[in-house]
């Protein structure tokens, strides 16, 4: 099997998670909403237990957890739900340019509905400017939506400082914490978070299940349901509970709770070694703030080689993702890297490394060697590398744009 370093895209299920889920497909198949028989009670009991496991990981009350189909749905529910629920208070939302598409596209939808959205820029290290955030707040602002940790560069936004600003102005704070929960300590009380989206499959749980944390006191937050039906999840998210998925999510959270600290220490050490190994190459640049960053993520640009061509050199052996979305046929480089101010050339030349629970030291050694060899080989056939070595300023050339 190839080495898997794309853990920001998804993680494999931990075998302990799968084991916990299995009975809920067969003998314990009951609908958690069936109140009249033992099958239903068993399902309800399992969901309640999982809700406690999930809540504990983020220091929330179990009643504050709304299960969804994943983080995308939770993002939609939070933003659209707040927009509808707090319409009498205002219609302005503040977010930033490096958010996940599930947030950005939802905000675009809000704009079509007549809402106002401010998209804060980020500095070249990927962090927002807190002064700009505060200055953007108006008397119509109802929500600040800033992600916890970025999926492409791993940069952690200063959530506590952001929540302090939100509190001061009586604005709700929503954070997409999909990449952070289960990887680093996330505490909704200490962090001052009002709503938070996260997902099971980024933390060794199953795909198709996630949650929205909705604060119940100081302040009591409400969202308008975006899915109508049987009134599940305190009326905020109708639909039959995905019992096996939720059980798996709960188990995944419990494992993270117990192992997160040692895992983060182990992964950051490996990540730093990977980074140090690759930075031996000339003209290699780490993207994003290296201090305020998730422990398992690295995003590196290798100037004068193109990301997709680079990946082809080792994609039989190593699975990772390129900052250039060439592979998805859009031919557009990453909007996140561009938001950091990277030129298209550097954005086209980047690789995203997402280490995970099952990454080994040997895999890191192999990866350093395979990528270094490919970069060197491709630079030998890169006209840009030759020009750089000859001291030609690439900006002085009149390129024929397509």
């Amino acid at each position, binding site marked *: 099997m190839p080495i898997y370093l794309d853990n920001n895209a998804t993680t494999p299920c931990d075998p302990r998670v799968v084991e916990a889920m299995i009975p809920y497909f067969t003998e314990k198949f009951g609908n958690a909403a069936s109140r009249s028989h033992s099958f239903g009670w068993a399902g309800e009991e399992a969901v309640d237990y999982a809700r406690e496991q999930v809540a504990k990981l983020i220091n929330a009350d179990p009643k504050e957890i709304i299960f969804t189909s994943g983080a995308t749905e939770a993002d939609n529910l939070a933003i659209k739900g707040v927009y509808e629920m707090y319409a009498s208070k205002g219609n302005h939302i503040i977010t930033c340019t490096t958010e996940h598409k599930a947030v950005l596209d939802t905000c675009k939808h809000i704009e079509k509905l007549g809402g106002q959205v401010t998209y804060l820029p980020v500095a070249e290290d990927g962090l927002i400017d807190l002064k700009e955030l505060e200055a953007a707040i108006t008397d119509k602002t109802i929500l600040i939506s800033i992600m916890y940790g970025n999926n492409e560069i791993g940069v952690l936004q200063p959530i506590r400082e952001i929540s302090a600003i939100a509190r001061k102005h009586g604005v709700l704070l929503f954070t997409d914490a999909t990449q952070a929960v289960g990887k680093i300590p996330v505490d909704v009380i200490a962090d001052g978070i009002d709503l938070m989206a996260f997902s099971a499959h980024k933390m060794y749980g199953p795909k198709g299940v996630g949650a929205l944390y909705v604060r119940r006191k100081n302040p009591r937050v409400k969202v308008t349901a975006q899915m109508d039906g049987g009134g599940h999840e305190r009326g905020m998210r109708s639909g039959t509970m995905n019992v096996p998925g939720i059980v798996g999510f709960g188990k995944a959270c419990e494992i993270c709770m117990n192992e997160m600290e040692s895992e983060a220490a182990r992964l950051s050490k490996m990540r730093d070694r990977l980074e140090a190994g690759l930075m031996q190459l000339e003209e290699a640049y780490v993207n994003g703030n290296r201090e305020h960053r998730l422990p398992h993520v690295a995003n590196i640009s290798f100037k004068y080689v*193109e990301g997709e*061509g680079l990946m*082809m050199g080792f994609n039989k052996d190593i699975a990772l993702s390129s900052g250039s979305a060439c592979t998805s046929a859009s031919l557009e480089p990453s909007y996140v890297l561009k938001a950091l101010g990277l030129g298209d050339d550097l954005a086209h030349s980047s690789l995203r490394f997402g280490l995970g629970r099952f990454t080994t030291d040997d895999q890191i050694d192999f990866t350093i060697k395979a990528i270094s060899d490919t970069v060197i080989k491709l630079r030998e056939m*890169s006209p840009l590398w030759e020009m750089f070595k000859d001291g030609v300023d*690439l900006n002085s050339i009149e390129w024929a744009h*397509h």
Partner: protein
Amino acid sequence: MAYSEKLIDHYQHPKNVGTLDKAKQNVGTGLVGAPECGDVMRLQIEVDEESGLISDAKFKTFGCGSAIASSSIATEWLKGKTVDEALAIDNMDIVEELNLPPVKIHCSVLAEDAIKAAINDYRVKNGLPEIVEDKKHH
């Protein structure tokens, strides 16, 4: 995306990577694409003045595997052809030879553009008029 064996082979073992002396009268150089677009090809031909045949061809490419393979195969095809014959190389020949997927057709277009640019550079150097493209790809 599954690539053809031939394409992968040209990516792994590219033919004619290198640089010819662009100052020479009988060398034509074509540089096409842009770093911002994710691909740049430089293709060069050296013409034997006595026979009129392309005696050598070299390339360097910044781009995806399809772009590298397209330029590699283009240099293979150029060698031994007259300049006029070289002009007849069509991007669709490259598409067929490498079995390029639709999203990668632009790589073959770039290779054809690089051939034409190298030939025009050679022609202008040798007092011949530039050939204006009659075909619009993009």
